[in-house]
């Protein structure tokens, strides 16, 4: 074996060992970091005013809703302009159960989840026939129809007036206010949702969804049941967004058709894109955007706040077209690949010389 060849083999082995070590260290860092973040998130509401706690709770609710949209549109490539409809379905399910049947608030989440999952699947089945702008239209129709249908079936939904709910109270023994309690409840649901989403998306299901998004024909040729996964994606997506809707009904204590217009659906889509459509953490960024930017826009311009909001959207897309988290992830990937190919270039040269 020549000197050149043995050097080549040695340096080929090194990256593998380094990666193994590196992966372990990275994993340890990640878990510690996650625990620190969660601890901070739990402590946070006790350091700020009630109103801010309410705002952050809203951010988390939006994040769960956007996460649902990310699953469907980001990972599976099926565009939805109508997720406000699923949000409304969850919200009204919770509201009607609490108002008519006296169901305690926490017990409304499972039924809302199941009903919205079923709705999502029901919608996903005919949606299989549609692609791209056609699917956009069909979901847009749902978004537009939602407030009208809510007003129409007024015996159940309370019509234009909506439904007023009794305010949820925190358990007495904890001694914390209502807002802080609900914050912690929503935080728990958010963390569970992110974990579930991560498990699903980083495993076989996630790979199938992405394969269907990028190369549907190849995916089918590899034996992936495209119809099943696409429908599953719709159902799961609707489940997440529906649970978010249920939480919003609980937290706000009121549902009415005006809250569930086309604008809400578009906000979800915008939040999704700003955060990063095919990411999990991007949903949180999206939630922050939806909740805070309209307020900031109002502060900047009294006369035309929505113009500022629109301008902000434009600027975000110019600078980070893949969303905040999406762009960061892309940046990290490029840094990693450059490190990998730096080693490779050396291999090429050695091979040429020998």
């Amino acid at each position, binding site marked *: 074996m020549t000197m050149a060849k043995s050097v080549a083999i040695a340096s080929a082995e090194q990256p593998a060992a380094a990666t193994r070590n590196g992966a372990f260290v990275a994993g340890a860092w990640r878990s510690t970091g996650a625990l620190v973040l969660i601890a901070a998130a739990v402590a946070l509401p006790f350091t700020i005013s009630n109103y801010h706690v309410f705002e952050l709770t809203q951010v988390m609710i939006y994040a769960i809703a956007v996460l649902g949209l990310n699953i469907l549109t980001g990972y599976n490539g099926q565009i939805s302009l109508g997720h406000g409809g699923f949000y409304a379905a969850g919200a009204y399910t919770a509201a009607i159960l609490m108002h008519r049947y006296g169901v305690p608030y926490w017990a409304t989440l499972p039924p809302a989840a199941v009903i919205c999952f079923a709705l999502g699947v029901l919608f996903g089945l005919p949606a299989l*026939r549609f692609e791209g*702008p056609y699917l956009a239209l*069909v979901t847009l129709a749902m978004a537009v129809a939602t407030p*009208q249908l809510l007003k129409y079936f007024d015996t159940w939904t309370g019509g234009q007036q909506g439904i007023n709910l009794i305010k949820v109270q925190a358990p007495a023994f904890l001694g914390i206010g209502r807002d802080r309690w609900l914050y912690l409840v929503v935080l728990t649901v958010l963390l569970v949702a992110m974990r579930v989403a991560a498990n699903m998306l980083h495993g076989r299901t996630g790979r199938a969804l992405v394969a269907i998004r990028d190369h549907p024909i190849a995916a089918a040729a590899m034996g992936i049941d495209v119809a099943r996964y696409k429908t599953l994606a719709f159902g799961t997506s609707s489940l997440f967004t529906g649970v978010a809707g249920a939480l919003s009904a609980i937290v706000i204590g009121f549902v009415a058709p005006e809250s569930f217009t086309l604008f809400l659906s578009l906000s979800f889509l915008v939040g999704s894109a700003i955060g990063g*459509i095919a990411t999990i953490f991007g949903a949180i960024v999206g939630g922050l955007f939806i909740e805070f930017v309209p307020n900031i826009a109002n502060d900047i311009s009294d006369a035309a706040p929505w113009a500022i909001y*629109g*301008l902000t*959207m434009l600027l975000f897309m110019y600078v980070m077209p893949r969303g905040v988290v999406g762009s960061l992830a892309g940046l990290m990937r490029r840094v990693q690949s450059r490190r990998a190919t730096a080693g490779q270039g050396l291999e090429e040269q050695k091979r040429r010389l020998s």
Partner: protein
Amino acid sequence: MHQLLQQIFSGLAAGAVYASLALALVMIYRATDLVNFAQGEMAMFSTYIAWMLVNVGMPFWAAFSLTLVASFVGGMIIERIVIRPVENAPVLAAVVVTIGLLLIFNALAGWLFTYTLQEFPSPFPDRTLFGALMTTRDLGVIGVTLAMLVALFVFFRFTATGLAMRAAAQNPESARLCGIPVGRMLAIGWGLAAAIGAVAGIMVAPVLFLDPNMMGGVLLYAFTGALLGGITSPIGAVVGGLIVGVTENLVGAYLIASQLKLTVALALIVLVLVFRPNGLFGAAIVRRV
């Protein structure tokens, strides 16, 4: 029977407006694979420009022509400055940009012109024809739309620029190899779409009354019509728009009034799409694997 014909005819007039906006949407979609959600608000803004010109005393058709030119230039500028940065970005980024543009135009119009409903003059006399079967206004709207369609057809079929634009939309790389400045063709396409939108806005304003939210419903119907016809087919856009207009009128007159009209009309059209998922005239999106 008489009432049915009446409804159909006025539906055609509304449909002509939807068809125009639908055509604008299809033009931009063919060139850039993007649905311009701001098309309606751009048209609304153009209509306000026409309104201002008429208010300072300009005769209607002069204001109309000037507005078209201004809209054309405006459309080109928007393509170059607002859309170009995201032309090579993921489609979703471009979609968000058009949604942002929608908000900006809407807010700007509200700020500059307030949200008060304004009257907009119609250039056509207010008379009925053929025993109240149709109004001269409706006939005028249909006539203007028809003239515009003929002009566009001649432009795209028989002029060098029109041919170059079709080529640039179909195959930008080959078009460049022929020396065609594809970027400029795109800008012209957006300019034309904006001008077409202006026509739609000006035709519908006398009926709907001018306010910043005037075109919201129109855009929705136009989008529906464009897809019904097939998002890649200009003829489809026109036929689709007309069908949507007639359907909306008939549903409103015979099935269900008020709020649910929109939902039912949309539902019917979605039903058609279930049987023809690429629209009536659309080509199936064929992809090489």
